[in-house]
């Protein structure tokens, strides 16, 4: 009896699977679902690219579907659907910090066997590193990002200053310029201190600038707690001494970008997207903004911006792995990345494009951003990154607003992470 029921169920399941999979088998086009976040910018580059893809590959039909607006919701959507085992999409856009985690969970297709050797070498090393986990390639770099320092070149020049190499110089420059300018509305250094991922990025950059890290190879959190505390104390000091505005503790990228763009500050830590906005015809700071690497602390050897960006990955549960990979490779190709860069929405992961004369003419900051990206560092590449980051966020925020001392914040974060990371392995 049970056997009959089982057989009937199996037959039914096979019939269903057959129906669903009928496309492709008999030569008709297969449908690949592509989940992506909306790309912000003056024009949407995706629609023309997908039209081009359709002309090149009539055998593949692409259905592009937008992910929710915020990064948290995108992640929640992807996690719930991938964990369910039948995600309903084939190619997905991932924040590069999720790649090791999703690979560890078994949700991504291992691309290593299908990629020609050296395929990832054409991308920035830090972007390629973010796509790699346990020696395998799980994603293709698509969009590049790096933390950098914007400065008001006009103000620095007027007071005979160069872009700061160290944070001490940055502080000295702010004091000198504000004393001389006598403008009470002029802020010093703007950065992102709201309790969210952006705060973790800013603190990581502070740790690197001080010659230390948040997580070492052995999985130890804050391996040098004194240096971590000093870096936090410096950030808190920026606020208490008025070098950064009090509202820094609620500031995200857009709030700081707008204030700097209105000419209300000397320095800003942000991403490359802001460069083009500052040079728009109606921008009050047009022609007055310079780009520099983030400064270092006296204890560190070099400052580095955090790299970030988006990768394309293929769901392991896909029924059309070949077609999905063809789409992902097309969208991350040099040709497609050039179109996306031209649209002004994003920066490419391929260094070669930063030197292309036509692109450089349209976006004069490209060569500078290229240098800064090369010097950038990825956030810890670990499947536990999101655990690390969301645990750090309230503790770091507490240190910034002065609810906890830096030492308390570091100690509390370590205690929590020990519980959460216990037995997780790499």
């Amino acid at each position: 009896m049970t056997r009959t029921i089982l057989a009937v169920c199996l037959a039914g399941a096979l019939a269903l699977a057959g129906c669903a999979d009928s496309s492709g088998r008999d030569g008709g086009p297969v449908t690949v679902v592509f989940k992506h976040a909306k790309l912000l910018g003056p024009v949407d580059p995706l629609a023309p690219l997908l039209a081009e893809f359709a002309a090149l590959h009539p055998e593949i039909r692409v259905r592009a579907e937008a992910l929710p607006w915020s990064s948290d919701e995108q992640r929640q959507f992807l996690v719930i659907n991938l964990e369910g085992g039948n995600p309903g999409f084939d190619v997905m856009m991932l924040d590069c910090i999720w790649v090791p985690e999703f690979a560890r969970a078994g949700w991504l297709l291992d691309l290593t066997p299908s990629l020609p050797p050296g395929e990832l070498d054409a991308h920035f090393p830090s972007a390629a590193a973010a796509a790699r986990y346990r020696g395998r390639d799980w994603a293709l770099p698509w969009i590049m990002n790096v933390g950098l320092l914007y400065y008001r070149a006009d103000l620095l020049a007027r007071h005979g200053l160069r872009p700061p190499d160290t944070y001490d110089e940055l502080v000295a420059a702010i004091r000198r310029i504000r004393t001389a300018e006598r403008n009470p509305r002029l802020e010093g250094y703007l950065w992102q201190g709201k309790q969210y991922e952006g705060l973790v990025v800013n603190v990581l950059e502070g740790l690197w600038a001080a010659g230390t890290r948040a997580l070492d190879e052995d999985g130890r959190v804050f391996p040098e707690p004194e240096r971590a505390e000093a870096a936090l104390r410096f950030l808190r000091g920026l606020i208490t001494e008025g070098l950064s505005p009090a509202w820094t503790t609620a500031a995200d990228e857009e709030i700081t970008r707008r204030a700097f763009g209105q000419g209300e500050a000397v320095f800003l830590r942000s991403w490359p997207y802001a460069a083009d906005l500052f040079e728009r015809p109606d921008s009050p700071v047009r022609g007055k903004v310079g780009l520099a690497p983030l400064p270092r602390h006296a204890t560190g050897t070099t400052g580095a911006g955090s790299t970030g960006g988006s990768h394309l990955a293929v769901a392991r549960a896909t029924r059309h792995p070949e077609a999905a990979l063809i789409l992902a490779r097309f969208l991350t190709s040099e040709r497609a990345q050039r179109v996306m860069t031209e649209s002004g929405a994003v920066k490419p992961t391929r260094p070669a494009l930063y030197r292309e004369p036509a692109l450089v003419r349209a976006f004069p900051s490209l060569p500078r951003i290229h240098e800064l990206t090369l010097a950038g560092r990825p956030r810890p590449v670990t499947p536990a990154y999101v655990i690390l980051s969301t645990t750090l966020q309230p503790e770091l925020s507490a240190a910034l607003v002065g609810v906890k001392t830096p030492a308390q914040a570091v100690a509390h974060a370590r205690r929590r992470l020990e519980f959460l990371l216990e037995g997780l392995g790499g």
Partner: protein
Amino acid sequence: MKARAARRTGLLLAAPALALLAAVTAYPALWVLWLSLQRRVPIFGIAEFEGAGNYLFLAADPRFWSATRITLTFTVISVLLELGLGLLVALALAGQRRGRRLALSLLLLAWALPGVVTAKLFEWLYNPAAGLVNYLLLGAQLNWLGDPALALPGLIAADVWRTMPLVALLCYARLLTIPAEIYEAARVDGAGGVAAFLRITLPLCRSILLIALLFRTLDALRAFDLMFILTGGGPAGTTETLTVYAYRSLFQTLHLGLGSAIAVVVFGLVMTVAWGYLRMLRREGLTA
């Protein structure tokens, strides 16, 4: 004897509804309870029974206690303000001669806006440099969402703005049903405005206020969207409610066991409060 038979028939008739309720609420609730007894991290393929481990961690977890305190503070203050202001607005509405319909639509607008829209609206109102709130405070430089002492009051104000209209409308509807003769009789007996309010209006609105209290408390205990969008639980976790903490554990750190344990605590809290209110309502004769 007869009563018992009737009771049995009643139970029988209610059985299908109860079964459906059990399927859609009891089953997931039990599943969450079961999850909360495990150490479960799907990304790392960890799923082991752990007993009370998650609860023991929470008992010693300052972040959990802070979230509990914040949840209760938020609930008590916002609900009291909503009831008080709601009643006042209802009285003002009832006493208004012209423009009632306009006032009602404006009230409904605040209530009908999705939480996300309200949150975005307040993000701009609270902007330290360009926000309307600081402008109205004569250019004060208050850092509403970034100051640990101001963030929670800021969120409470936003919540009151959003949900006070519900209370106001409920009370207004009740006020309309109080016959004018009662007030006239009171005036003849020499009662002033205050006495009429205390002796007539308030007692007659008591039951509707209790129902509003029940709804609002249960909602406030589960508050999520405002803090999630406006502050992300910050600064320094000073606006992280239990639901935000549960969300972060469930969907961000993907510790399903720990997140479920927090959810169970919220569930217990809500059930306790609901039970207390229901007893109160029963004493009022409002429910069977």
